[in-house]
């Protein structure tokens, strides 16, 4: 057997420790979600599914989940359409003009969420959008837009600049060129952007806390309130379900990519 160098042991140990640091806090919610106690903590006497039952039978939890899902889907659709249009438009511009436009677009990522949410709040008050689903959708679309554009930019970066010219010379109008040639080439980027936009909206809490009161409750807001009002282990059950769902989706995409 080859002697294992100290160098190698050091880096392997380091790598495993970092992995544990990243994953263990996620995994700790699993035993907590199965606790038989009525507060957040590890199981005392036996494992219990009571908090899962509670989640699936509580209309407030289900309603919040459903709100997050449908708002996320609407946001992802709006952001996908607008972000793709923006990215394709930039692709047709000169390099300089497109660089400026792209910097302006990604500012929502650069501004701290609290500052941004304050902006939404003040503006939404004037527009009468406080505590409405439309208000949340608009705010989330703004936040998700850069993610779609960035992934569409990435999909278009290797597309030959002469391709639209080729399409035009072959008889296609500008619209036909965009729809038949550029959009299909951007499709992988649009799909990635759609998923990102959904996650951004599904995950977003700061903005929601600022611009909603009673009528609109999303899943992150419900979890937040759950932690503040009572330390209900249902939160851990929800978190576990989300982790499992994420793993499932990741596994499916990974498998589809290898096949």
């Amino acid at each position: 057997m080859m002697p294992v160098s100290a160098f190698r042991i050091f880096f392997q140990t380091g790598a495993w420790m970092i992995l544990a640091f990243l994953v263990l806090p996620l995994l700790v919610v699993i035993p907590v979600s199965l606790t038989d106690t009525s507060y957040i903590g590890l199981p005392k006497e036996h494992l219990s599914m009571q908090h899962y039952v509670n989640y699936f039978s509580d209309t407030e939890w289900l309603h919040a989940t459903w709100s997050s899902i449908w708002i996320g889907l609407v946001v992802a659709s709006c952001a996908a359409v607008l972000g793709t249009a923006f990215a394709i438009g930039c692709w047709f511009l000169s390099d300089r003009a497109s660089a400026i436009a792209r910097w302006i677009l990604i500012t929502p990522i650069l501004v701290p969420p609290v500052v941004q949410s304050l902006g939404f709040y003040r503006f939404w008050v004037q527009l009468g959008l406080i505590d409405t689903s439309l208000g949340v959708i608009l705010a989330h679309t703004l936040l998700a837009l850069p993610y779609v554009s960035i992934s569409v930019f990435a999909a278009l970066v290797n597309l030959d600049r002469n391709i639209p010219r080729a399409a035009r010379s072959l008889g296609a109008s500008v619209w036909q060129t965009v729809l038949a040639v550029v959009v299909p080439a951007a499709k992988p980027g649009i799909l990635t952007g759609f998923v990102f936009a959904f996650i951004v909206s599904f995950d977003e809490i700061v903005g929601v806390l600022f611009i909603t009161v009673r009528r609109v409750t999303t899943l992150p807001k419900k979890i937040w309130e759950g932690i503040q009002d009572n330390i209900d282990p249902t939160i851990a059950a929800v978190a576990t379900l989300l982790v499992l769902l994420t793993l499932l989706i990741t596994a499916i995409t990974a498998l589809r990519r290898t096949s």
Partner: protein
Amino acid sequence: MSTPILSIRQGIKRYGSVHALDDVTLDVADGEFLTLLGPSGSGKTTLLSAIAGFIRLDEGSISLRSKDITKQPPEARDFGMVFQGYALFPTMTVAENVAFPLKVRKRPAKEIADRVAECLDLVQMGAFADRLPIQLSGGQQQRVALARALSFHPQVLLLDEPLSALDKKLRADLQWELKALHDRLGVTFIYVTHDQEEALSMSDRIVILKDGKIQQEGAPGDLYNKPRNAFVADFLGKSNFIDVTVTGREGDVLSCAADGAKFEVEAETPVEVGTKTKVALRPERLRLGAPGEEFLSAKVKQVSYLGERCQVIVTHDSLGELLLSCATWKTGITPKPDLPVSIGWDKDACVVLAPE
């Protein structure tokens, strides 16, 4: 020339203070293989883009069969175009690419299928109909691009350096194929290149551009043998340039004097006695002989063996270095560095150049 298929009149295109096209007037005959030749920045691609409709001329007009198309968008012009980077649609198969112009024109499905098969056979790509462009080699992609540009029976086919991304051997093969395709289809080709060999081997007519201006146009042989100015003489093939003073004239024959050398030149255009001018001399028109055999004595400086030909740089005391090219299989003497030789040429070998 009969009625031209395409006419450009006083075309001007400016980018800032630079004239990309400077007063270009050009007629293209129906069925012609016309090449726009020039170094980078000469305006050849700008001219092709203006013909295709991708850029609008600042001044001047373009007409197709006597109909003004200066302001028409590219899709209304009905010109096929082939690009250097192939520009195939990456998400469509080979057959879908070729069908694209026909689908846009809303032709019946049956007709599209027949025409796609016909065009793919034309470029020997029939077996690849269901592949994606990424699965093809560069040469194959360019054949598909050619089939796509021809599928809708374009009025004119525009080719923007279509072979320059390919390797040398493939380029030579495709040159023969392009020429054969042109002769078979009778479609007008307008071909842009910076490669003088490509231009010479395929074209019916070559237009040489520099700084947005047409320098000279004509059949390849005419341009090669009778370059109008030093730029053309140097860009198309190689030339030696000699500054001379015209000392006498008898009919078409001029007596010329350069530093330390006197020789005769046949000139088609009249040149006044006493004029100082420049003459061009092709390397292959120079003869190499043993000392005293020809009229100028010189010395070999460097030899480069190229297989069927060999290039020799000789130095003459006052004319300086001259490039000479001779067939390797019939030289009387074997040139090698420092060998004293003599050089000479026929009086129809020199071309009197106009100032640029």
